[in-house]
């Protein structure tokens, strides 16, 4: 079974994000880049499916600038068989729909039985791609997946999706799109051998033209990024405890209107 895993490279969760001078992007200098954590669940699940079935191919895909190669290399170190890098300045301003069109084009070329996404990227938290790609392909899509089992004949899948207080179990025919939720699995750390082997695996570079698409101007563009206003300083109520408690209750009731 061939499984395609689209991944996004995002700033490390510990990054102190600063808005860039043009107020349309974040300051990228000094950022440590990582694979979006939900995408790691996706890679892990793809590897487990392959291992369980005893055969198959896991292909990691990413759209983005040169730095994205590093994230793809990490997927290869985890055990993905090869990678595809859609690397074209024409995609510099891509919105989710443009990205979805590019990924759908890759999926059409590769013809996998399964595409596993993370449920959202942790940088812009859009969560739109799995549905958009599925729509473009005419495939079913299952979001927030906590568990899955593929039928022995590889024709269908049962997948459990987290809902308030329980699990909703769906059945879908393959090919289909899955979007991984935290809890699906515990991603592995690459082994040293995996890291050494990653160098020998292929990362294929693709341009828009190779996919037979010409990116259109984005329909969605960032107008402005604003930092959150600094939190107003707190207030310390001092003095006699009885007085202070009375003042605290008054302030909570009359000023904050919290009680």
């Amino acid at each position, binding site marked *: 079974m061939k499984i395609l895993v689209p991944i996004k490279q995002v700033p490390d969760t510990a990054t102190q994000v600063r808005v860039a001078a043009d107020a349309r992007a974040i300051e990228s200098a000094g950022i440590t880049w990582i694979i979006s954590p939900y995408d790691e669940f996706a890679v892990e699940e793809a590897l487990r499916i392959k291992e369980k079935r005893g055969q198959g191919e896991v292909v990691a895909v990413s759209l983005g600038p040169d730095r994205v190669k*590093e994230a793809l290399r990490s997927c290869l170190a985890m055990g993905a068989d090869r990678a595809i890098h859609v690397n074209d300045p024409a995609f510099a301003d891509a919105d989710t729909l443009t990205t979805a069109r590019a990924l759908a084009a890759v999926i059409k070329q590769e013809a996998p039985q399964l595409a596993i996404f993370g449920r959202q990227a942790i940088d812009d938290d859009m969560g739109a791609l799995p549905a958009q790609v599925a729509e473009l392909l005419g495939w079913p899509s299952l979001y927030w997946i906590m568990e899955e089992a593929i039928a022995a004949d590889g024709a269908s899948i049962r997948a459990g999706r987290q809902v308030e207080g329980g699990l909703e179990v769906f059945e879908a025919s393959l090919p289909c799109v899955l979007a991984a939720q935290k809890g699906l699995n515990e991603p592995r750390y690459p082994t040293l051998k995996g890291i050494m082997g990653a160098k020998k695996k292929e990362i294929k570079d693709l341009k828009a033209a190779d996919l037979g698409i010409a990116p259109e101007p984005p329909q969605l563009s960032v107008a402005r990024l604003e930092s959150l206003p600094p939190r107003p300083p707190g207030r310390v109520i001092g003095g006699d405890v009885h007085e202070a408690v009375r003042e605290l209750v008054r302030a909570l009731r009359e000023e904050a209107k919290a009680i």
Partner: protein
Amino acid sequence: MDFALTEQQELIRKEAAALARGFSLDYWLEKDRKAEYPWEFVKAFAAGGWLGMIVPEEYGGSGLGVTEASILLHEICAAGAGTSGASPIHFYMFPPLPLIKHGSADLKGRYLRRIATGEIVLSFGVTEPNAGSDTSRVETRAELHGDRYVIQGRKVWNTNAQEATHIVLLARTAPRDPAAPFRGLTLFFADFDRSKITVREIEKLGRAAVDSNEIFIDGLEVPAGNVVGEPGSGFYHLLDSLNPERIFTAIEAVGIGRAALDRAVQYAKERIVFDRPIGRNQAVAHPLAQAWARLEAAEAICWKAAWLYDRGRPCGAEANTAKLVAADAGFEACDVAVQTLGGYGYAREFYVERLWREVRLYKIAPISQQMVLNYLSERVLGLPRSY
């Protein structure tokens, strides 16, 4: 000149850091408090194949160099593990090197695979009560009886001896000749036979998690086939441990310094005294900046030494210099960190005091600062020997 890591080294750095950072500062605090060997940590690295880093590929390892091992040890220390985490791992990096470089095919075949998997736990027996800085004074004797040596003597400061399965052991096989004091020493790769070796733990200032011991060897039998390299040339083979060990401990000191500095810088930004973050006072900021600069400079000489070693070039001056400047830079960074945290710097739960206690070791071992300066005076500057 190229200061960039290769793509593969960069991936090693990133993944080693991720694995090491999976073990929290509280994990290490607990290990230190309970004086418990960090098996979970060692097993995680064993499972990932990291322990076989420098073991050649034909023996199941990855055949990487001292440079890559240094990258790994730096990340372990920068993650806050300190020597508690680095020592168990570096025992898979420098003690096996003489075996890898000078061992017979038979000896390598018998042991290297089991080192790479972590099945073998090594101890390193060089220092003795009467042979510390002056290794030529080793008194432990090995006598050949037929096809086996019988070893008698004592060693001190043996890390790992509580659980070691094997020991890399230096012993005299010929009397000390003052004209050639380092001849007549032989290096053994021996089973840690507990019926012939008694172990006594030494309580110490730091790194309680990883034991240090005195060992008493009484009639340990070692097959002649377990001599590493040539009998009588053991000290020269051992140099393939000693120089890498200096490079490793140096880069570890840098990593430990960075871990402490990171916490101190964070604290200096957050701690408000006299209505301002303490880091706004230059008396607080400058020592932190100074510590950073010294760590950077020390790190650079570590990479140079590793680069030379991996290319088979002489690296004694650089490995020793790295140890000298990194031990100082690492200790100063930890000391500045303790000072920056004020009273809390002295409290265990703020983590930096453990790093301070642990990094102190590297001014003493594996070679003291004074002995490095002796080496540089004599061997590099050509000054007359004073002792």
